[in-house]
């Protein structure tokens, strides 16, 4: 029998309902795996007492016959979610010691559904990064390694701890957030599933903000079915987030029919960028063939403004970040610098922020400050917002032409070595996000599905992009791709 921590949510749910395992058994198995997985640096704050309390409560609920699908399921929570009384630092020294007095809506929804929190997961500071190296806790490590090579690899970012924990079976599933690809890219780097829902599907209340018009919460799981189950528990209208959508959350799992015959899949030609590595082009072609074999019609489409998504993103996101991160001033929470004789409040702000923010966060806050400053606001920020409108229009046009979903690569490469991208070359670092930022700008849902291994034995994934609010239909496409790909590989355990 599979170890309990290796189960999918769906299989664990079935065992719990049949009484063949308890939530406490599942939780103990995960806590043991979590403690044995310290080398991965995925869990940065462990909450075993909370986990066991919730597991016992879940067992009572299951016995009483009142158990939603997530009841008794042990999950990890990205450090960016505020969790009451539990350290929530967004991997930043500026929030050192911060224990929120409140619970984020998404984690509250999960708790209400009976889910068991095991602890908080590593990430890039304030979700800014694609490698998890920009973290006050140090980098999380990918459980996958290249064949015959023990070079430590990045799990991707920013939800790198979430991805590493799920891929290494330290938990059954985890929460992530995706501002420019932070769920999908780490999912691809670790061979798991992750969905960024439509902007507004999950409440942002209590999720420490990076770029508010782009941030969106979503699940990271071992299967598409699990993503459907967990998204259903996380999503829903929340009066505390004015951008949360007041529309019903369907039963996503029930929409996994496995039938996409007659659906139109768009293949965007602009994503076949110059220098696209052969292995990425090959996996994209294979995924396309799988959907065609499943009865879908493959259509060549154009999204003409794709090339401008990355520069538009790196104007809009830092601009919003510079505004959101203004709150870290050493007054209300977190770090305050030690002051010298004669220092006033300005020195307190400047020293606190210099000490508390990591290099990448400082850089993005300053870029944002610059593009919003007098004289440059129109040239950069307003222009980027207009380009963003054009990028969104590109997608609206292809969907109006009858395209049901778009298939595209997620990242220009498989997982690479920790330290391979120089911190001093921000533009090279940002190029990792070239395929993922487009749909954050457009607000669309996108799901990462593992499709195969490259020549070095590392997972490669593809993303499907769907129409707004149609995550159910999108997940059904992902389910078909998952079934056709039959990806069952797991990282060899070295930790």
């Amino acid at each position, binding site marked *: 029998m599979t170890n309990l921590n290796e189960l999918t949510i769906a299989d664990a749910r079935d065992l719990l309902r049949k009484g063949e395992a308890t939530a406490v058994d599942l939780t103990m198995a995960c806590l043991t795996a979590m403690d044995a997985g310290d080398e991965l640096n995925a869990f940065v704050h462990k909450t075993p007492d909370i986990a066991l309390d919730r597991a016992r409560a879940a067992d009572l609920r299951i016995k009483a016959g009142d158990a939603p699908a997530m009841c008794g399921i042990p999950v990890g929570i990205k450090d960016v979610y505020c969790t009451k009384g539990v350290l929530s630092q967004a991997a930043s020294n500026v929030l050192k010691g911060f224990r929120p007095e409140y619970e984020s809506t998404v984690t509250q929804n999960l708790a209400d559904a009976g889910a068991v929190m095991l602890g908080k997961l590593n990430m890039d500071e304030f979700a800014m990064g694609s490698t998890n190296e920009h973290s006050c806790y140090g980098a999380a490590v990918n459980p996958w390694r290249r064949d015959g090579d023990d070079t430590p690899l990045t799990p991707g970012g920013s939800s790198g701890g979430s991805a590493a924990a799920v891929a290494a079976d330290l938990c059954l599933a985890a929460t992530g957030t995706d501002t420019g690809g932070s769920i999908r890219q780490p999912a691809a780097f670790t061979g798991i599933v992750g969905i960024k829902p439509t902007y507004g599907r999950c409440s942002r209340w209590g999720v420490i903000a990076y770029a508010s018009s782009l941030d969106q919460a979503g699940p990271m799981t071992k299967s598409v079915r699990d993503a459907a189950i967990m998204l259903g528990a996380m999503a829903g209208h929340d009066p505390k987030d004015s951008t949360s959508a007041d529309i019903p959350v369907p039963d996503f799992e029930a929409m996994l029919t496995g039938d996409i015959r007659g659906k139109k899949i768009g293949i965007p030609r602009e994503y076949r960028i110059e220098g696209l590595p052969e292995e990425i082009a090959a996996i994209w072609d294979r995924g396309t063939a799988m959907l065609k074999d499943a009865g879908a019609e493959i259509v060549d489409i154009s999204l003409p403004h794709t090339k401008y998504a990355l520069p538009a993103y790196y104007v809009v996101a830092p601009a919003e970040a510079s505004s959101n991160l203004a709150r870290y001033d050493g*007054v209300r929470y977190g770090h305050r610098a030690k002051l010298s004789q004669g220092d006033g*409040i300005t020195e307190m702000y*400047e020293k606190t922020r210099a000490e508390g923010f990591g290099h990448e966060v400082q850089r993005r806050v300053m870029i944002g400050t610059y593009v919003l400053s007098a004289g440059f606001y129109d040239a950069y920020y307003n222009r980027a917002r207009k380009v963003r409108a054009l990028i969104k229009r590109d997608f609206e046009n292809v969907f109006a032409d009858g395209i049901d979903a778009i298939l595209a690569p997620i990242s220009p490469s498989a997982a690479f070595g920790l330290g391979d991208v120089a911190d001093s070359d921000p533009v090279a670092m940002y190029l990792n996000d070239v395929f993922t930022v487009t749909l954050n700008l457009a607000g669309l849902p996108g799901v990462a599905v593992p499709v195969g291994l490259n020549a070095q034995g590392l997972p490669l994934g593809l993303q499907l992009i769907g129409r707004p609010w149609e995550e159910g239909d999108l997940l059904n496409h992902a389910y078909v791709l998952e079934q056709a790909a039959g990806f069952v590989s797991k990282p060899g355990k070295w930790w």
Partner: protein
Amino acid sequence: MSIDIDTARKVAHLARIAVKEEDLPALAGELSAVLNFMEQLNEVDVEGVEPMTSVTPMRLKRRQDVVTDGGMADRILSNAPDAREGFFAVPKVVE
């Protein structure tokens, strides 16, 4: 667009982040690289395009303008680096 050292110093001050004088040239270089990358946006014809303000056309919700919460000063101050007598404490602001 190239950022000089004076501009880098000014941006750092606007962002309220202390940057050492000797670190300004590297910062100016990094900011210039990113801004050069953004220059591509000038190739796009945005004539007559309305800036995107919301992701989906949704009317923002309204609520009653009433007090819904309060009376929890101790919880609000619980994470403050320096709180005294029910207030946040900061260095002297007025000269």
